[in-house]
């Protein structure tokens, strides 16, 4: 080297083999000590089965809810003060309405991009709850809630409840005719609780229905309190997932003691970032092309007005369906009333369902006496009892959802509304009861079937000169020859040789 020490080359050499980036990271490590943990994190392996992406749909739609929600809070005014609307939407011009409703109409028509943000927010919520449900179903059917992940199951179930509640609070904020009816129903449900119902209702609503404080209270719950809890629980959910590592399906090289998949950096980060964009893109496209919650058509809420064909948003549909089909079982004696026709479908039933969901890991542990740690997942068909229980519960909830649209069904199928309701009462009991043994049976059949439930490999079927058929598995790529693949066996009902027919080449087929 020469005497001059400040050449470019020597500066470069001084930086080390990784240049400026390496120097910056070293500085970071000096202050935070992140080098070893960072390397572990970058090397972290994520199993990448497609069914593990369902939870990410929920996570990213929640991010979209946060971003669009912040935008909305900058324009929405959570007040029940009465104002007169003067704006671009003629059918409301000059009408009196609450400031909450007026600000939402303003947001939809007068704020640039406001309608898109509102619709994206609403669609993201529908997708959020839907993704949580199918993600929970995946976790349930594959047994991912077993030890050591019971705590994560409880966190997740709580998240489902909070998502549903926050959705209800959110779509009630604009104080329009449709959601206002939902608030009236919620008030009556709270009233129906014995002993304390009237007190709770008067305290939550600040008096008799409707009062003027409920919209501001819903706003604080929807934008501050519940999202904070959700963010906290989602962080706990992800922390547990990272700490306990993700589960994986059994298969090639996978054991209870390892994780097989792709590394965090760069593969998993790329896939998950791309998926975030895809979720955002689909939400934006829905927000662009599918109108949702057109509150300007509904008009402001007025306790004396009502529209027919009013259902809550889909994730509350099971409550509405239960309320419709439940018989009118009111208890009225000794100077007191217990409205069981409200209490059972709207308070007791969801309580039972969610409690059942919460304690399921404990129930299963008690029956299977399985206290082992499980990092490998089950194939649903290999656990017929659990799968049958899950399908029964889902079909029960599904029937309740369908029961909430009795009027739409009557209109669509052109039958009497009364007939549809009576039919739904029967079906809500019959379908889940039938689902159990059918599912159980199907699981057993899949188990006994050769290669049942698995992707079939195509076979190359060759016929030799003597007429013998052989089947060899056909790989996806020419140079990809997995030895563990098996050919699907040749059907046994084709006999190789037949006594009755002496001619060669004639086959007797046995049916």
């Amino acid at each position, binding site marked *: 080297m020469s005497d001059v020490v400040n050449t470019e080359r020597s500066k470069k050499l001084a930086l080390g083999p990784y240049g400026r980036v390496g120097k910056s990271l070293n500085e970071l490590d000096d202050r935070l000590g992140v080098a070893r943990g960072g390397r572990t994190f970058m*090397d*972290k*392996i994520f199993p990448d089965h497609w069914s593990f992406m369902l939870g990410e749909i929920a996570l990213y739609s929640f991010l979209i809810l946060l971003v669009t929600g912040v935008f909305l809070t900058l324009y929405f005014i959570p007040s029940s003060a009465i104002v007169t609307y003067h704006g671009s939407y003629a059918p409301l011009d000059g009408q009196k309405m609450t400031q909450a409703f007026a600000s939402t109409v303003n947001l939809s028509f007068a704020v640039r*991009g406001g*309608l*898109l943000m509102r619709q994206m927010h609403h669609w993201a919520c529908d997708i959020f709850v839907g993704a949580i449900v199918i993600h929970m179903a995946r976790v349930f059917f594959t047994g991912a809630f077993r030890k050591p992940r019971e705590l994560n199951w409880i966190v997740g179930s709580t998240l489902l409840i909070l998502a549903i509640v926050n959705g209800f609070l959110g779509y009630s904020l604009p104080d329009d005719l449709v959601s206002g*009816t939902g608030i009236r*129903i919620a*008030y*009556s*449900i709270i*009233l*129906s609780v014995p002993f304390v*119902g*009237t007190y709770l*209702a*008067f305290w939550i609503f*600040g*008096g*008799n229905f409707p009062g*003027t404080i409920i919209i501001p209270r819903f706003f604080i719950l929807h934008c501050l309190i519940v999202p904070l809890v959700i963010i906290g629980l989602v962080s706990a959910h992800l922390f547990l997932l990272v700490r306990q590592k993700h589960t994986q399906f059994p298969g*090639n*090289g996978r054991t*209870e003691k*390892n*994780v*097989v*998949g*792709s*590394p965090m950096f760069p*593969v998993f980060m*790329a*896939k998950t970032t791309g998926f975030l*964009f*895809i979720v*955002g*893109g689909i939400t*934006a496209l829905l*927000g*662009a092309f599918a109108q949702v919650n057109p509150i300007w058509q509904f008009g402001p809420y007025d*306790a*004396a007005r*009502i529209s027919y064909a*009013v259902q809550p948003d889909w994730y509350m549909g099971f409550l509405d369906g239960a*309320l*419709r089909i439940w018989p*009118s079982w*009111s208890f*009225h004696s000794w*100077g007191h*009333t217990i*409205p069981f*026709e*409200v209490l059972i479908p709207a308070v007791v039933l969801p309580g039972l369902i969610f409690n059942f969901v919460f304690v399921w890991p404990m129930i299963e542990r008690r029956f299977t006496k399985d206290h082992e740690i499980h990092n490998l997942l089950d194939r649903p068909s290999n656990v017929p009892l659990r799968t049958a229980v899950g399908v029964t519960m889902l079909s029960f909830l599904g029937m309740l959802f369908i029961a909430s649209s*009795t*009027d739409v069904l009557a209109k669509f199928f052109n039958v009497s*509304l*009364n007939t549809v*309701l009576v039919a739904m009462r029967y079906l809500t009991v019959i379908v889940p009861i039938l689902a159990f043994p059918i599912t159980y049976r199907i699981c057993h059949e899949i188990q006994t079937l050769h290669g049942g439930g698995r992707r079939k490999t195509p076979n190359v079927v060759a016929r030799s000169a003597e007429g013998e058929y052989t089947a060899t598995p056909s790989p996806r790529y020419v*140079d990809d020859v997995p030895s563990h693949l098996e050919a699907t066996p040749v059907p046994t009902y084709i006999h190789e040789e037949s006594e009755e027919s002496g001619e060669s080449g004639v086959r007797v087929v046995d049916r």
Partner: protein
Amino acid sequence: MTDEHRTPVSLSGLSSNDPRLQPAARNPELVERVISVCFIVGTLCLAGFGACYWIDAQAWKLGATLGGGLLFLGIGIVAWGKYLMPRGPFVEERHTLANSDADRQAFTASIVERGGSVVQRRKLLGGLLGGGMGIFGVVVMFPLLRSLGPLPKRTLQRTDWRSGSYVVDQSGRRVEVGDLAVGSIETVFPEGTENSDRGQAVDQTVLIRVSNEAFTTMQGRETWAPHGYVAYSKVCTHLGCPVGLYEQELQLLVCPCHQSMFNVTNGAVPQFGPAPRPLPQLPLYVDSSGFLRSQSDYHEAVGPGFWERS
């Protein structure tokens, strides 16, 4: 890849020409070109979003450009990760979460032994503190609950209808005996409450003319429906929705929420659906000027059931 190369391998100590580090795609250049197209289309869409916003285009154009842009970028990034990055599979060992027995014992000992010494020797203090925390837990709920609203008292048991209240429509116009034809329905309130929240929520009443002569819905109510004007509370006894759906040939009031059906001619007794009680009937009379007025308040609490409802 042969079987050997399908076996998952650890990331550390991998030779740089290991086939598991190769891209998954068989034709990486083609895939790269497709991804470039995705990125270009996505970027153009997002630029379009900016342009649409600038010119204040319709909402669907904003959404379509934003959605298309995000979607194409997303597809490109995923394809990059899926087809052009190391195909794997890679493996990592799970470390048992549980610590060694010695560690566990030490942890438990630190709680039990040290805690035990506290509790066992100072039982009285522990008990008093527990009692204090218990009281705190109870009284801290007082402002969180009780300050939220008033006590219900008898608010739910009565409405604003009084003896002699004028029956008015939502614009405040008093209803006269000649107003409605048979088969008509109107939403009415006691005069003075038609614009208030409480009036709309609690006092709302449906007025139906079922005949031209006085009408008896039930025994004991012979004077309640003069000139055929029957008045029922509009608040459904199931969950409080306004029962505004009147079918005049079937003589049914149907609640639009959960389709409870009330028979108008016999005191709004529910014929079908989840509602448990008939809609309370408001007794009316016609005064000397021909205006409809109420004889008294409803004879029972209106609306859905609650514990104190006798």
